[in-house]
């Protein structure tokens, strides 16, 4: 696992209060990890801050799973 994935996982675990082993490639923030729609907005805010990137609203909507987030951030960096 890459450094990006580890950092993203840490944010997800802290923010959603889920077990680390639940945060897998295809884990959906809303369906599998219990996030509500506001949580997903906050996660994106946290990713922006952690990685010093800007995630526009239309891109943010495509980030549904842990894997989506890691891929997006790697490309954005």
């Amino acid at each position, binding site marked *: 696992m890459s450094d990006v994935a580890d950092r993203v996982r840490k944010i997800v675990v802290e923010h959603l209060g889920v077990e680390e082993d639940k945060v897998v490639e295809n884990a959906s923030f809303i369906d599998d990890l219990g996030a509500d729609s*506001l949580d997903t*907005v906050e996660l994106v*805010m946290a990713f922006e801050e952690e990685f010093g990137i800007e995630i526009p609203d239309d891109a943010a909507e495509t980030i549904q799973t842990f894997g989506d987030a890691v891929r997006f951030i790697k490309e954005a960096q």
Partner: protein
Amino acid sequence: MFDLTGKCALVTGASGGIGGAIATALHGAGATVGLSGTRTAPLEELATALGDRAHVLPCNLGDAEAVNALPKQAVEAMGGLDILVNNAGITRDNLFMRMSEEDWAQVLEVNLTSTMRLCKGVVRPMMKARWGRIINISSIVGSTGNPGQANYAAAKAGMVGMSKSIAYEVASRGITVNCVAPGFIATAMTDKLNDDQKSGILNQIPAGRMGEADEIAAAVLYLASPEAGYVTGATLHVNGGMAML
């Protein structure tokens, strides 16, 4: 009671009667205040009168870019932003049949759209802080309507619906969004009324007098306080009984 020590509040329209009173009340409870408005001189004057913990942040609410930049400027000046009071407003009164689209658009832009922009700008830091207070100054005419004020009444009613919707979305993050709806308050805006209009209005007010700006400020202070944490999506009517809603 109502201790705002350590909190930072941004007040728009702070150069006006009600806005100045609101800023003074929040400052008096210990908050650091950001005074916004279009006219710099009265803002500077108020800041000098308040002394410490007062920052002047001029902004033309008709200028979208300037409005979007204001929350950030406020955070930079004050070190945070916990309380937003959208108080600024303009009127362009005319009979509906004679109301130009420009008069309509200007009033909606300054009174409603700029409020939306500022709310959007402050929600982010408030979500992170898990604490926030947004208080939008609506008006009695948003509920009752008023001849000659179709634009103003629409903007003020729109503010209430918008506030309730935002209140739903952010309630779980410790952020409350409420409105204060003043009735007729003695300010420069009501000074423009002629004597006939004034006596007509006074006849409709059970309290038998116009309200004072301080009486609006007290309502805002309550809604801004930690004690009002369970009040959200509400509209607090301060109108001497003119409309019991």
